[in-house]
């Protein structure tokens, strides 16, 4: 236990400004403050992988690492769409996930936000084109459910994801 506490003390709070991440650190703080200012409360997100290669999911995981510390700022991932304000959806939407995605959307209470993630989920860029509709995939997320904001990238970085989440919240408020 002593070793554990020592490790915690030694690590410190990395979510505070640290020299080695510089500008990126300030950007994270600014985005997180924006979300709280616009929403004034916690935002809950249900992530749905509707066909990705898992790289987008790895970057979504990273949002909860101590650097980006999304949960620490009142944005958290929930287990059920019934508890969610926002769906964060990766694609390309497969035929085998089309039905499950529609059900998840229907189960999310109104007003709901949908953010499409990644070149495949947004249907953009070279990778989005390579993973376009075929016998096994329907196409980008917007081919199945309405999308508020798109976050392209292969995969998008955690900063891009935070910007996308913020953009969806801001758009909804206007």
């Amino acid at each position, binding site marked *: 236990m002593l*070793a*554990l506490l020592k*490790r*915690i003390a030694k*690590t410190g709070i*990395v979510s505070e400004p640290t020299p080695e*991440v510089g500008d990126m650190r300030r950007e994270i703080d600014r985005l997180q403050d924006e979300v709280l200012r616009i929403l004034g409360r916690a935002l809950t997100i249900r*992530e*749905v*992988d*509707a*066909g*990705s*290669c*898992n*790289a*987008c*999911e*790895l*970057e*979504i*995981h*990273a949002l*909860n*690492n*101590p*650097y980006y510390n999304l949960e620490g700022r009142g944005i958290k*991932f929930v*287990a*059920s769409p019934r508890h969610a304000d926002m769906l964060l959806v990766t694609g*390309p939407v*497969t*035929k*085998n*996930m*089309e*039905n*499950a995605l529609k059900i*998840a959307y229907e189960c999310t209470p109104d007003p709901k936000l949908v953010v499409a993630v990644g070149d495949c989920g947004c249907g953009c860029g*070279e*990778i989005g084109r*390579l*993973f376009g509709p*075929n*016998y*096994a*995939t*329907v196409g980008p997320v917007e081919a199945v459910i309405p999308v508020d904001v798109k976050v392209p990238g*292969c*995969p998008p*970085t955690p900063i891009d994801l935070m910007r996308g989440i913020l953009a969806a919240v801001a758009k909804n408020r206007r």
Partner: protein
Amino acid sequence: MRFHAEPIEFERQPGSGAPVWRGRAADAEDWLRFAISVHRHEGRLCALWGSDERAHGAGFRVHAVFALAEGWQYLTLDLPADNPVYPDLSGIFAAANRMQRATFDLVGIRHDGEDQRPWLRHGGWPADWFPLRHDAGDPPPWENQPTDYDFVRVGGEGAHEIPVGPIHAGIIEPGHFRFTVVGERVLRLEQRLGYQHKGIECRLAGADFAVGAKLVGRVSGDSTCAFAWAYADAIEAACAVTPPPRALAIRALLLERERIANHLGDLGALGNDAALAFGLSQFFRLKEDWVRLNAEVFGHRFLMDTIVPGGVAVDVDAAKIAALVAQCDEIGRAVKELQRIYDAHSGLQDRFLTTGPIDTALAQELSLSGMAARATGMLLDARCHRHGYEPPPPWNKLAVRPATAETGDVAARAAVRFAEIYESLRLIRLLGADLPDGETRCTVSPVPGAAGVGIVEGWRGEVIVGVQLGPDGRIARCHPHDPSWQAWPALEHAVLRDIVPDFPLINKSFNLSYSGQDI
């Protein structure tokens, strides 16, 4: 060359990759006999797929990759166009079951066994339309209706089912798990996968080498280096090209960085699943540092599109190597400290020890490879010398020390991951200290009609890519194979002695790919 006095004559494929011998079974009997012989000699069934050869006057073909102590055997069997049926291998190698069913869904060639349930087709296209047939054309108009699946039912007093998925509670890929339980105890787990099926093999048909590299590099996003390297090996074997030594060393550097990134993430998640959130924060911080340096040095956090046929698309200078090595020291120290904390944490060890065990015999029976197999004591690693097997460059110069554990439980899989981090750090230092000079890439001229197989020890296990070129020199058929095909059934066994709440922890200790096996 012949193996174990079987009649099939094998020929070593060219290229710089893992030793692969190619052979053709004359008939169904030879196919079956060879499989039995491999099984008898403690070999494994590594991959199985099908192809349609009717466009050039032949019938269909079934392909398999087996492994013996000496290396891998790539065997094909030609099937008639009018009745493409081949012998079921699932009675010899359990791993054949899902691969054979997927082969039918995609190519429409049938094994003669009992289990004819679809695997990848969930109702998204008609049962009599096969996407990988050369004359398939556009998919016919079809209403996408999820089909029922014939799960094996378990009866008895108090037995009931818990269906989970396809959307899971966390930020994870989709799949369906059907638990049969009595109280909390798991009596049976049956998986239904295929939800991530996005027709990658169909997209690969007709692609050029560069597009193929992008597609195969996205079969499983956490293993992009392993897949891209296996694909490059397959293309290079088909075209009889050897990439420059510097390219091979940089590939190894990238692969080991991928291994460490994934092990760091999973060790954090394992702590979290045993209620030690401290572990998640600590390891995720280290992983973030690690992938940020990836972006700085190689231009991508997960190293996508860095390995290409003929070599690598990135290079490193002395300053970058110094940064990579300095980070090894830093991460190595932090992981050692965290391992001491994990090892001494009684709450964590209580959840890890004896949970989700599999033994060597089961691992062997399921043709398991990689980290999960080594955690049962199997000394199986494509990077390592062993009896009869000479690893390909650059591993032959590095004397890789494989990590093994004995107990095959969650604790063993965690221990192997720790040991593999230290070993990969050592390899990165070695590679950085002695990086060969010269080119990082050579030209690969397509050889029409040629075929090749690439095999790479990814962080999960053996990643295999089989490539066949068409008369135009483009990809006619490419099959990327994730080690999760073999490991998913192992997970069905691993949970049997435990209770439902242990499932997330056991699952995470394997951390298998859905996308990789659903392709």
